[in-house]
């Protein structure tokens, strides 16, 4: 590997600053009293405390999953603080009331909260450590009946909706990390698109972990009623700490008849340094229920951060003719480990799913695609198309594919294609001989490789993702 290329790869993580904001941090450790404390701090109703305690009881009986293709020291769940909130008056009427230091943080992150956001026409909810800080455009969205607010506000203002849908897609006993999240989640976003409404703008949430020993356990719930549609964007960053932070989020999507939910993520949690020290453990459960006929749920993710990623955004295709999609780019560098993919569970008739997964491994990283396509006996005429492509950069990285296919209806059609390629020295030399330097060459090759996924992203996110990938890969080829 050439020295110039080495230099570029070793550029520091640009989101690795800590904001100097006073935080209200809970003592480390987890037991029933922690959960009661979290619930009390947030003035939660009894039913929610019950939900938490039941989840906690379930979690206690579960064991940490170890089947993923990732290696890390055992997590001490008692060494984590389960609540951290910026100290300030929680009620904000407008953006002007937000702590200026916090706003500067978001400026550093490139999150344009003010006019820039207005220009982009995106409504943003910001989750800082565990608490939702500000939601823009609330009033405008309310005019068309769209509810977009922090999870805590939703619990207060729309308890009937939360009670109706919370835990219906991902029951709290679903898996170890989902149970943990259900017990201790602090905030997140709630989004409700009523019958027949096409959400007039993209909705967006930015997550940030700012405290060294706190975990982040946010919870997102999106419901699209009959004929409704919404495009939702999620971005994540965290400062650089030498310790590891746990991020165990849960995202539930519900699409009723003819509803359409498009969920896009650009995940850039701190990945640890070039020696694999520090970084976020990103153990996330995301699932959509395509409940109604002709409903559609589409996941698009660009995963570039985190020391470890364990994430399988899935779709349960319950309604007849419903559609599930998963478009993913996962990039790992240095010592990052990603085990990510999807599950497409076909239950309704003529359900269709598409999986396009692009894994890029550089440095000494390990990148695994793990996917399940399950066709239930009821899913007559179901179809799936999966394409998993891996690209290796350098000679010390690993790419793995673990496809699981389970077909119980003989009218179903399932296709799986896979490929592995390598950015080789000869390709780089070809570019160089045409005057193109290594950075531009890598960026062009990677963008070509990820094209099918990037074109699924909303425009401003596509640009961000393209830049992010080039930035992350700088110098890894040579």
């Amino acid at each position: 590997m050439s020295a110039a290329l080495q230099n570029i790869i070793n550029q520091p993580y640009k989101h690795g600053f800590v904001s100097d904001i006073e935080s209200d941090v809970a003592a480390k450790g987890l037991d029933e009293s922690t959960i009661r404390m979290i619930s009390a701090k947030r003035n939660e109703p009894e039913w929610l405390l019950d939900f938490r305690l039941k989840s906690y009881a379930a979690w206690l009986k579960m064991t940490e999953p170890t089947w993923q293709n990732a290696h890390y020291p055992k997590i001490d769940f008692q060494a984590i603080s389960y609540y951290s909130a910026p100290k300030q008056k929680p009620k904000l009427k407008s953006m002007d009331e937000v702590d200026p230091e916090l706003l500067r943080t978001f400026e550093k992150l490139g999150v344009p909260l003010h006019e820039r956001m207005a220009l982009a026409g995106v409504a943003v909810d910001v989750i800082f450590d565990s608490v939702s800080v500000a939601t823009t455009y609330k009033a405008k969205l309310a005019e068309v009946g769209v509810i977009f607010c922090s999870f805590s506000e939703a619990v207060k203002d729309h308890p009937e909706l939360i009670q109706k849908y919370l835990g219906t897609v991902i029951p709290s006993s679903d898996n170890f990390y989902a149970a943990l999240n259900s017990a201790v989640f602090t905030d997140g976003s709630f989004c409700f698109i009523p019958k027949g409404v096409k959400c007039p703008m993209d909705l967006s949430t930015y997550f940030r972990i700012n405290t060294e020993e706190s975990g982040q356990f946010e919870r997102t719930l999106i419901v699209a009623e009959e004929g409704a549609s919404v495009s939702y964007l999620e971005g994540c960053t965290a400062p650089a700490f030498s310790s590891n932070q746990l991020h165990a989020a849960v995202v539930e999507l519900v699409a009723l008849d003819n509803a359409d939910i498009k969920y896009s993520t650009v995940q850039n949690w701190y990945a640890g340094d070039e020696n694999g020290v520090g970084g976020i453990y990103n153990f996330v459960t995301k699932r959509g229920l395509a409940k109604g006929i002709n409903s559609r749920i589409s996941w698009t993710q660009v995963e570039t951060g985190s020391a470890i990623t364990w994430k399988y955004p899935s779709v349960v295709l319950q309604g007849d003719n419903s559609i599930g999609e998963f478009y993913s780019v996962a990039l790992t560098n240095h010592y990052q480990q990603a085990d990510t993919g999807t599950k497409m569970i076909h239950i309704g008739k003529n359900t269709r799913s598409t999986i396009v997964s692009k894994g890029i491994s550089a440095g000494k990283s390990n990148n695994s695609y793990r996917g399940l396509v399950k066709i239930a006996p009821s899913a007559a005429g179901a179809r799936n198309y999966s394409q998993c492509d891996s690209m290796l950069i350098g000679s010390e990285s690993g790419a793995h594919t673990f496809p699981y296919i389970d077909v119980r209806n003989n009218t179903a059609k399932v296709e799986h294609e896979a490929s592995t390629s390598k950015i080789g020295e000869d390709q780089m030399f070809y570019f160089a001989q045409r005057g193109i330097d290594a950075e531009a060459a890598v960026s062009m090759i990677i963008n070509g490789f990820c094209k099918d996924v990037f074109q699924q992203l909303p425009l401003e996110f596509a640009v961000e993702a393209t830049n992010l990938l080039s930035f992350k890969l700088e110098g890894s080829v040579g």
Partner: protein
Amino acid sequence: MIYPDSKTILEVRGLCASVEGTPILKNMNFTIKSGEIHAIMGQNGSGKSTFSKVLAGHPDYEITSGSILFEGKNLLELAPEERARAGLFLAFQYPIEIPGVNNSQFLRLMYNTVQSNRGKEELDPLEFDDFVRDKMKLLEMREDFLDRSVNGGFSGGEKKRNEILQMAMLEPSLAILDETDSGLDIDALRIVAQGVNQLANKDNAIVMVTHYQRLLNYIVPDYVHVMVDGRIIKSGGKELALELEQRGYHWVSDELKVAA
């Protein structure tokens, strides 16, 4: 063509290069002037392809001694992309496939990068489209060529034409054609040669590296050099190529032994 007022484009002196410790080029000397076309011929393993890659700066080769001056500049101090921007072009023997990268975007990035480095105007996508289509006519290329990925699924002939197209776009002062004739049928050979002949002028120089005399029927060289074991051991006019074709490479090596 040989012009009286020509200037030296490339001057190679006592060049030795090795790959993974094995010497390949051993005291290579070579000079070419503007307006000239030279052919370097030799058997497999004689070092002729190594020579073209070394000129372009391939990272696999280590220069152990010698010098290369390119238009008066020390070529060995320049990175491969700087050499390309300075006007050195290599038409590859095996142009590599770059899956997923759109050919037209690649060509535009190439062209604009080189242009801006030469302090010239870059072209926007529409202007570029006109420009590249015009050049494509020269090489009788199909329209859909621009929409495909770089060299992706191209036939041997298409790959070589793509190389010459790039040469036509970049207008290098020195073009090295590495086995451009290999894998070409007669029609493709004619088209490629026609393209090269139209690009040759009194300000640039062309080096053809080849095995066979065949290409030289279409692109007539001013000088022919024979490479054996990492250096040029015989040089002459275009008739040397014909003599080689009739008498074989052994004739030159044997002649050398007798002289020694």
